[in-house]
């Protein structure tokens, strides 16, 4: 999930700029039927996300490492007139996938509404340019369209981030847009009708479901795709190691080769607790309340590296990550501490070569 560096002024270029070359090659090589106003066929969009080699030899880098099935369902959903809801725990590349989907489908990932607790209705429908409104009265010129409105008019893909953070009444403004495919403007007695090619991608956080649960009316307008955590330990170790390396370099932290073992250990602990079963599949465990996502594993290792670099001998050791792990696992002081202690006693203590880790954890646990 790294962006191959592209020399632009922007700190982080948009997907359609960073991968412009790949998108162009894909569109050129694509001979399958395209839905109206799509830049390429659904098959090509899936290839763009999952990576592959085109017939002309262009290598498409994988943007998303995960099951093909999921990407296919997501792309297919966009090709029907249903909106797409990407669910997942934090750190599962929801936003990343939605950005690249929009870039591949519409060539534009910027029609974005960021959902927050304070997102107003205007952010989804339209606002007014009050100077014009006062001077000339209500007119289309005085209207400030939202990204969603623009996407409808132009037949592009709009994105709503963190939909469940948006207050429920504001969420529900999407219902008309998604079912009637129209946005009425009662002030003018007009409406904006969505043209073919319009669709919407929303992302939401699994764990936040309780915050502003989607109404069932809205929910029914979405096809839901859950983005999973990395499937195998090796894939996750790989992701963590790569990200830690990037972050570490920017912080000038030395990462010795021994570090990889410790990363593997952190990932193992995270995966075992998250899955509720040991890596060998023999012992079941209770899971703590925290998400223990890959992103958290990355921050634990980065923190450990900083500890090792500034206070230790520069080599990442069990003691450096123990405190970080404890902090990530024990979110609820009562229940999670119990889970962690059980894990320590039942699994860590018995495991060969984990003695140092056990001791380090005991030290910080008490």
């Amino acid at each position, binding site marked *: 999930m790294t962006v191959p560096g592209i020399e632009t002024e922007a700190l982080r270029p948009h997907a359609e700029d960073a991968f412009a070359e790949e998108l162009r090659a894909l569109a050129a090589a694509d001979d399958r039927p395209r839905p109206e106003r799509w830049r390429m066929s659904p098959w090509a969009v899936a290839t763009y996300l999952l990576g592959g080699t085109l017939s002309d030899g262009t290598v498409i880098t994988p943007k998303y490492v995960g099951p093909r099935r999921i990407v296919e369902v997501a792309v297919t959903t966009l090709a029907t007139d249903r909106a797409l809801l990407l669910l997942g725990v934090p750190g599962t590349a929801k936003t990343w996938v939605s950005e690249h989907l929009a870039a591949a489908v519409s060539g534009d990932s910027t029609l974005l509404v960021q959902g927050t607790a304070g997102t107003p209705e205007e952010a989804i429908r339209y606002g007014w340019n009050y100077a014009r409104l006062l001077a000339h009265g209500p007119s289309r010129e005085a209207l400030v369209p939202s990204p969603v409105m623009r996407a409808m008019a132009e037949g592009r893909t709009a994105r709503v981030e963190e939909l469940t953070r948006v207050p429920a009444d504001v969420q529900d403004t999407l219902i008309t847009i998604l079912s009637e495919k129209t946005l009425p403007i009662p002030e003018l007695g007009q409406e904006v009708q969505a043209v073919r090619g319009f669709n919407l991608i929303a992302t939401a956080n699994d764990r936040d479901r309780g915050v502003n649960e989607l109404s069932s009316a809205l929910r029914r307008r979405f096809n839901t795709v859950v983005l999973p955590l990395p499937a195998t330990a090796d894939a996750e170790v790989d992701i963590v190691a790569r990200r830690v390396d990037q972050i570490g370099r920017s912080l000038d932290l030395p990462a010795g080769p021994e570090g990889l073992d410790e990363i593997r250990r952190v990932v193992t602990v995270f995966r075992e607790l998250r899955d509720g079963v040991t890596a060998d599949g023999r012992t079941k465990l*209770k899971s703590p309340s925290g998400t223990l996502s890959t992103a958290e594993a990355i921050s634990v290792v980065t923190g450990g590296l900083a500890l090792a670099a500034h206070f230790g001998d520069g080599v990442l050791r069990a003691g450096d990550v123990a405190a970080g792990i404890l902090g990530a696992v024990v979110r609820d002081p009562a229940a999670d501490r*119990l889970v962690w202690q059980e894990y320590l006693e039942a699994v860590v203590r*018995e495991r060969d070569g984990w003695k140092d880790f056990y001791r380090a954890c005991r030290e910080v646990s008490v």
Partner: protein
Amino acid sequence: MSGPTPVLLGVRHHGPGSARAVTAALDQCAPSAVLIEGPPEADAIVHLAADPGMRPPVALLAHATDDPGRAAFWPFAEFSPEWVAIRWALAHDVPVRFIDLPAAHSLALNHGGRGRPSPVPAGDAPGSPDRSAGPCAAPRLDPLAALAAAAGYDDAELWWEDAVEHRRAGGRPGGDALAPFEAIAEAMGELRATFGESESESGCEGGCDGGSDAAREAHMRLKLREARREFGDGLAVVCGAWHVPALTEKRTVAVDRQALKGLPKVKPQLSWVPWTNRRLSRHSGYGAGIASPGWYGHLFHAPDRPVERWMTTVARLLREEDHPVSSAHVIEAVRLADALAAVRGRPLAGLTETTDAVRAVMCDGSDVPLALVRDRLVVGDVLGEVPEAAPATPLQRDLSRLQRTLRLKPEGRERDWELDLRKDTDAARSRLLHRLRLLGVDWGEPVCSRGGLGTFRETWRLRWEPELAVRVAEAGVWGTTVVGAATAKAESEAVGSAALAEVTALAERCLLADLPEALPVVMRVLADRAALDADVAHLAQALPALVRSVRYGDVRRTGTAALGDVATGLAERVFVGLPAACAGLDTDAAAEMRGHLDAVHQAVALLAEAAPAAPTPSKGPAGPGSSGLRGRWAGVLGVLAEREGLPGGIRGRAARLLLDDGRLAEDRAARLMGLALSVGTEPAEAAAWIEGFVGSGGSGGMLLIHDERLLALVDDWLVGVPAEAFTDVLPLLRRTFSAYDASVRRTLGELVRRGGADGGTAARGVGGAPGFGPDLDPERAAAVLPTMRLLLGLDTGGDTGGETDGGTGTDTGVGPDRDTDALTPAMARAGGAGR
């Protein structure tokens, strides 16, 4: 070949498309006889397939007569091409013959899977594994995979579905129903030319099959020749597609006979048994089944629009389970499934597409309701039925055999049996009865032994009711032998059990029934349930039974190492969770938890004793396993005893248990008691503490009498209570002490009146016993000593201890009318000294 050649219908076993095509083909060519891949011994019972009482899924079961554990199954679903062909033939009065290698050979060749209900290699060797290709080729190099790869598919199954099963053209009126089979035969011919020959020579000696492909095909050719002589050339053969080219091969009779020479033989018995969809599916650990019998059944039955009908069924199921699913959902799901199929380039939405669509549209992306769909629809709950006329099940046969060898006749009248488990026959009888009970065949009922209390004796009340035969028949789905069926049933019960205690009980029953093969599964489930059960009370409840099992297993010489490990793990979890679980309990819950505390304490002691017998793997970092266990338990008790805010009863109990184990110094116990009983403590809590500390009911009182230290502690504290607080404490103490027996209270009172056990203050000593002499009367005391010696087995002068103790500590004025009463404390005193 000359003239009208036999029609060779190469199929995939359990393929609905194949089944449909077979019907069409049979209708078109109207053969004079139908030959089917299957054991020829079944020819005699094939007519039962037309019986109205026969409802698929069913299986042909072949087992060795003298060893029912050696068995093979040929399962048939409604959509199996073979089944369709059998039913077609029976309906059209056309003879049916099975042409595969006789079960006599395939059973003899297969040595694996003895005693198991569904031996994977034997279970479906001639049936499922070569469902489209040679069985032996599958694990090494799947020829189908080569075909699929040529067609651009990653998954061979998927390709077969698209290319064959989902094609509905075969049934179109006017089309040539035989064309697809010719194409398949041609493709298989190519494949065999490339892979086949080398495979069938090198690949099959692993015995993954009832007989090598070569022998099977030779036999099929011979049977085919035989049938042509008998019925003429208008034959139809239904067999695995892989075998089709082999049947047209030109070989001489002599060569084929040679291939069959010298094959080992056993005497087989064949019967029909009911089967379930679940066992057809591969989820049940059944080597090569089909993943989705329910889906295939749907494809087979749906007259048209299979995806729409499927989605409607799914929606109905989800609605029944209270998931809000509307018709709009169904419409969207169908659209998504079709679009997905188009994106993936498949001709029709298959199971993968429909599942993806159901997940995304109807289940909000969640796998939880999806699991329900998978379980109930994709696999399905269908249970087959077999008519009464079907031959007896092997389980019944095995039971009769056991009854004969154990001389345990089924009798209608009630009869009690005393079994001495040290004798081999009796032990075997006990095992049989326990296993039958596990299977729900309640022939015997355990009753309390009259005489001995020893674990080696069991009493059973036996009575054979006619309906038990039905139970045995029902239990036949679990396996072919009593032990195999009991094992399978126990495993399935373990997996399906809801509560931890159920699993522990099951583990105990497995030990009694001596089912070592079921134990690993039960243990795993037990460990899983224990790990996930957050309720420490449940864990604590389960522990004693488990520890009992560990010890009982030792008596029976069963390997209980695994059990010990699980018990240790359970104990560890209890240790970790107990302090937190004890907080914030109300009175009743605290009393219950105190009971658990006692039970766990005993269990840990037993476990620590039993542990050294079984090699514990936890020798490494934990130090010596058993003492570590006790040590950690003591640590937990210490925490419980000291922690503020826990119910008094639990703290008192913990302190007491520690004191009994000698892990708590007396002065420390006194301090704890002082803390617990000081005025700062809620009076109710203080009383509970006392109750926990000195136990409740009669036994606690006896302990106070017999243990001077405890009495001294209570006494000291009571004396120290200030007068104004005393009235507050009094009712609480009264509650505790009034639970004691009258005699205990009285003795206790006497002890205290005499000044307690600790050489109490002079004031009490003087004023304590009005009407008694001030000093010990050595003469009267000496009268007790002979009895004491007798009781303690001390023949030589061990009396000095008793005398000094009594003399220094007590003012034992024994009145003339107090003889008998006084004896008790005196004896106790002497006993204490004797220790």
